[in-house]
């Protein structure tokens, strides 16, 4: 086991453990400096982003929607957290030479070819189903996985079993060796 691989990647156990430290620090910081304790999560931000986009064409519709009202369409802690992921990954990849423009991921290309259209269709359809599911489950691998299991939440265990169970089953057939 290595601390760093040839391409500059950090050992996943080490980088992951640092995320654990970050999660603890974040819980402490939000408890001290914001009105409520915040655990790491990402998927509600997509609801707020959808609400903001709809707001530009049909603000009355957004105001009348029960779910947007419940989750509040605003730039909150989590929205900026997700924005931060973009900045952090950009800085990290540019400064380490691992930034690479890629139009189709290698695993996808091996199975479905170089077509960007096919990849786009898969990503949009898969993304829509996944996010619908994440909102129904009230969390994604960050909220249910990291934050849920860290707190030993019953819902975290069940959600992660469903995420990986369905993921393994679909991946097995979808990317089957040709």
């Amino acid at each position, binding site marked *: 086991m290595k601390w760093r691989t040839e391409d500059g990647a950090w050992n996943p156990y080490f980088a992951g453990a640092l995320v654990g430290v970050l999660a603890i620090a974040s819980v402490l910081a939000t408890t001290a400096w914001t009105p409520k304790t915040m655990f*790491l999560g990402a998927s509600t931000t997509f609801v707020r982003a959808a609400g903001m986009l709809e707001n530009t064409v049909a603000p009355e519709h957004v105001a009348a*929607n029960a779910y947007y009202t419940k989750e509040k369409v605003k730039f909150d802690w989590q929205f900026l957290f997700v924005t931060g992921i973009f900045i952090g990954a950009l800085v990290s990849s540019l400064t380490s030479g691992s930034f690479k423009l890629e139009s189709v*991921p290698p695993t996808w290309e091996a199975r479905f070819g170089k077509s960007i259209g096919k990849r786009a269709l898969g990503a949009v359809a898969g993304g829509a189903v996944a996010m619908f599911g994440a909102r129904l489950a009230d969390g994604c*691998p960050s909220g249910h996985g990291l934050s849920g299991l860290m707190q030993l939440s019953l819902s975290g265990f069940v959600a992660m079993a*469903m995420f990986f*169970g369905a993921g393994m089953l679909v991946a097995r057939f979808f990317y089957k060796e040709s």
Partner: protein
Amino acid sequence: MGEQLLGLVTGIIFGLLLQKGRVLRFDKQVAAMRFKDMTILKFMMSAILVGMVGVYALSDLGVITLNHKAMNLGGVVIGGLLFGAGWAVMGYCPGTSVGAVAEGRWHAIFAVAGMIIGAALYAEAYPLLLNTVLAWKDFGKISLPESLHISHWVVIPVFCAGTLGLFAWFEKKQL
């Protein structure tokens, strides 16, 4: 404003660690689902182990309050299965998708767009789901130790030992 700034700084560090750990890659995510490369699971479970000990210690000291998500049977089971199926095809989870775009894997922008569409569809379906799937059975905001009526300091060492055993197996099989 303080809340947003705190979120931004936390996100930047998280994004940096996700990128250094190489978990933002489509190929790594799909490889974990196909049992070929367990990088994302090693990363995730390490974060959970460290976080678990810290968060429970702080909670016992009365410094923080835990915040469980509700164990709504229909929501978590059906939503979880839908998420898993979509995740396999998309190859990213919500948090990693934006980081992947930042790494130059610009095709992840389609995943982001798809997820915004999915969120909008969910907002429309919400009233109907609230009276059907989400109304089936709700066990509430409860932890595993609470549901088993045992101390969390019994569950935590067992969970840690099990996970370390899993790590040993990953290394042995060179996953």
